[in-house]
């Protein structure tokens, strides 16, 4: 509920009128963020109002190939934490939870990975596979997976090509890679797109909820 996170009355009413001392326009970014984190629905509808992807070619790609609920995402082959090539097609025949996260060894991503790890049995019980994707290289993924004993695959999206192909939106005016999770069903079609940068554990709840209904 939005009201839970609102500050004391005086502060909130002062906010829009004061000249920001903070380095960037907090108001807009937080107001953009609030609806996403509090009211996020199943549909991915933030493309028009939020940050623009960094290069013009990715804008074109995202317009034509953006992955949304009901579509089949573009195929890819990426290296996992052991340096082995892994294709998306490998997972056909069972549901897949594919989560894009900003970077290894950052607080939110660590929380998210550990939350997936702690609920991994539930995902297995639902017959699903969990795959994490970030722009870090295989050695970074290997160290990250080892440190936190992650039982699932981490893929290395070097150059963030797949992130751009799938149209994963950025946060805070393009400064932060977005945290977005896709649930694909057995046929490879997207059944859920969930985005939440600052409440990473919610990704686990939302995806499990959907998997139980698949």
């Amino acid at each position: 509920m939005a009201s839970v996170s609102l500050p004391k009355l005086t502060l909130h009413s002062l906010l829009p009128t004061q000249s920001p001392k903070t380095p960037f326009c907090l108001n807009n970014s937080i107001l953009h963020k609030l609806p996403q984190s509090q009211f996020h629905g199943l549909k991915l509808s933030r493309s028009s109002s939020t940050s623009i992807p960094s290069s013009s070619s990715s804008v074109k790609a995202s317009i034509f190939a953006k992955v949304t609920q009901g579509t089949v995402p573009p195929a890819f082959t990426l290296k996992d934490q052991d340096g082995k090539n892994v294709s998306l097609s490998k997972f056909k025949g069972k549901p897949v939870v594919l989560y894009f996260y900003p970077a290894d060894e950052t607080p939110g991503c660590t929380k998210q990975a550990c939350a997936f790890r702690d609920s991994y049995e539930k995902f297995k019980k639902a017959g699903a596979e969990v795959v994490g994707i970030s722009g870090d290289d295989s050695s970074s993924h290997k160290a990250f997976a080892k440190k936190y004993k992650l039982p699932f695959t981490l893929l290395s999206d070097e150059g963030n090509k797949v992130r751009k192909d799938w149209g994963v939106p950025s946060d805070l005016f393009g400064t932060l890679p977005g945290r977005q999770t896709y649930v694909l069903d057995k046929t490879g079609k997207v059944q859920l797109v969930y985005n939440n940068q600052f409440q990473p554990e919610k990704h686990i709840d939302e995806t499990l909820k959907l998997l139980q209904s698949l």
Partner: protein
Amino acid sequence: MGAAESHIWLEPILAGLVGYVLADLGSGVYHWGIDNYGSAETPVFGPQIEAFQGHHKWPWTITRRQFANNLHALARTVTFFVLPIDLACHDSVLLGFVGVCSGCIMFSQQFHAWAHGTKSKLPPIVVALQDAGILVSRPQHAAHHRQPYNNNYCIVSGVWNEFLDTQNVFEALEMILFFKLGVRPRSWDEPNSDWTEETETSSQVALP
């Protein structure tokens, strides 16, 4: 004073209130920066960064410092910025804002010291102001001195702490700095012995 003149006081007072509120925000942003970035070798800020690290290691020592000690460094900086403003400006609203904002900043280290005090040893008026939320409270600041040392950075009134923490403002700033400049804030990594608080009884024992 007639009704027509009372508004003359209202605007500077309101400006002062805004200054008080912004001083708290400023204290938080500055504190966050110093706690997380740079080192003893950083130009200009090095000694302060080292002092803040030392404070995390031995937080109780701040309660043993004299009043003048808590004020002098900030007073120097405030004088440098505020004296020219005082001499050049005559607008009462601006002066109200600058006076209260800079005054709160100047006293912020003393407010911080009081937030480390024990209730029975503090002047009753200070305890009353802390309990009323006008000065940063002891429990709120104590939360900053617990793992993962990444919250409750404001030390004037603490009025911004809840908002900044629930909205993940500092986490967002940290992520942006990480992605744009490649710098990791100290609060992301396991606290090492430079950061972890030494308890008085264990100060003889080496920390892991």
